[in-house]
């Protein structure tokens, strides 16, 4: 499974202020699978996710050592263009944050900043991505309405469409369903399962049932370390480590 890793992390350490958030993380994320990162609050799972697209750069007093290889390219190499790295990954945050513009412009925003100008091309991208996220039929008559008029579940799918529009290879989800109702949650989960044909998907979640439903592999993080990494069923039903066992059974949260 790790013959052809999409993201390869080697000895990653992240320190914010004088607190070490991630300790010596090394892991290979397989290509075109859904991987869930689970662990108790404050264990560093979101930090781990954000280290994949250098979203930590903006955090005050942050220090990152080690390597994160995406397609065998170290994204922390000073010569790497950060916009190029980020374009490869879509991020779906905890709550949807549509850009302050119309539904259409939200999806077209990414392609526009990367140089797509022709209206016909943009129209096609918008339609394709809204269809991919199942929004097209719901919004096709009001593409130029403000994105904030959509329900929160629709907004989250719009944010996913917006991310897909820049043609990423990887989708990162940071507890992407935590603000959504159960119906919207299951729509998003189904989307993840569908999308793994084309994308590598890494999700942070604190819902074990969700990790079980959608992911092929699970990473269990505790106190800034990776405790265990394995196929979903194996890790949840037959954990090798005591800590994992305790967490899965609900002793630590």
């Amino acid at each position, binding site marked *: 499974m790790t013959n052809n890793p999409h993201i390869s992390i080697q000895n990653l350490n992240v320190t914010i202020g004088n607190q070490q958030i991630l300790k010596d993380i090394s892991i290979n994320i397989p290509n075109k699978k859904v991987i869930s990162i689970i662990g108790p609050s404050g264990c560093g799972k979101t930090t781990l996710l954000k280290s994949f697209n250098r979203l930590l750069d903006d955090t005050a007093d942050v220090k990152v050592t080690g390597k994160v290889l995406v397609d065998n390219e170290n994204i922390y190499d000073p010569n790497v263009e950060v916009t190029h790295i980020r374009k490869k990954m879509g991020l779906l945050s905890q709550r949807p944050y549509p*850009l*302050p513009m119309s539904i259409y412009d939200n999806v077209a925003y990414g392609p526009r900043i990367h140089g797509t100008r022709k209206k016909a091309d943009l129209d096609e991208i918008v339609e394709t991505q809204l269809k991919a996220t199942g929004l097209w039929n719901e919004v096709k008559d009001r593409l130029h309405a*403000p994105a904030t008029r959509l329900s929160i579940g629709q907004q989250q799918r719009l944010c996913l469409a917006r991310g897909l529009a820049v043609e990423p290879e990887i989708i990162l989800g940071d507890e992407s369903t935590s603000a959504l109702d159960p119906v919207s949650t299951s729509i998003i989960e189904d989307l993840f399962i569908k999308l793994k044909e084309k994308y590598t998907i890494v999700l942070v979640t604190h819902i074990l049932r969700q990790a079980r439903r959608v992911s092929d592999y699970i990473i269990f993080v505790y106190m800034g370390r990776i405790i265990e990494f394995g196929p979903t069923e194996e890790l949840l039903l037959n954990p090798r480590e005591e800590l994992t066992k305790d967490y899965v059974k609900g002793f630590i949260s």
Partner: protein
Amino acid sequence: MIRRKLEENFFRILMVLATLIVGGSFFLIVGTIVYKGAPFMNWDMITKIPGGGFYIGKEGGVLNAIIGSLYVAGGATILGLFISIPVAIYINMYLGGKNFIANGLRIAFDVLFGIPSIVYGAFGFLIMVYFGIRASLLGGIVAVTLLVIPILVRTLDEVIRTVPKELRDASLVLGATRWEMSKVIIRQIRPGVFTAILLSFGRAIGDVASVLFTAGFSDNIPTSLHQPAATLPLAIFFQLGSPVEEVQGRAYASALILTVVVLIITVLSSALAKRFSKNNIR
């Protein structure tokens, strides 16, 4: 139980009283201006410049000061925005918003905010002397711009800080550069920009001290940046000092005009703010 109830009532009455004092003062001020100024209000006041005997109570109006004030306050606010928006964006988006340079700049602007306007007037005057500019519309605009920049920067800074970090990330993760992200943030803060314009314009149009030496005073409407310009506050000041009752009355009429101008600007900018917030996330 009784003690708690008494406490509750005591503080509620205090708050009601404080609110009444503020509201009452507002009505007293506006009432006085209307009461004293309305009898002297006429069409001439807002459509004519001072005639030959205006300052001894004969014909004419304060159109020169109305236009002069709009020029000075409008010019200063627009010029101020061109300087303040980049500063506010730079502090928050490039310096990261929380480091010591950003905080140092904030303190500096707070200090500038608190400096009395006469100091800006004196400073503007010095600059003018240095460059050999005489009291003129240009001088007034420069001095008032200095006065409003701290207001604009601090207001915009506060507005930008209310933008959720996730919204910045949302554009960054799509591969946006900092400047592209800043453009999204500017869209998001547009309603706040109108609030800043309102505050800045209100301060600019009402200030006397900064234009006292820099804008000069003229009975004519300036036709170029190098001509002196009258402003409403100065017009009020001069007329109020007159012993002629008619002229004093016109001072109140001028104050009424000034108040109405500010009112119009307030209504306009909040309407625009509302219009531009339709796309915004909360």
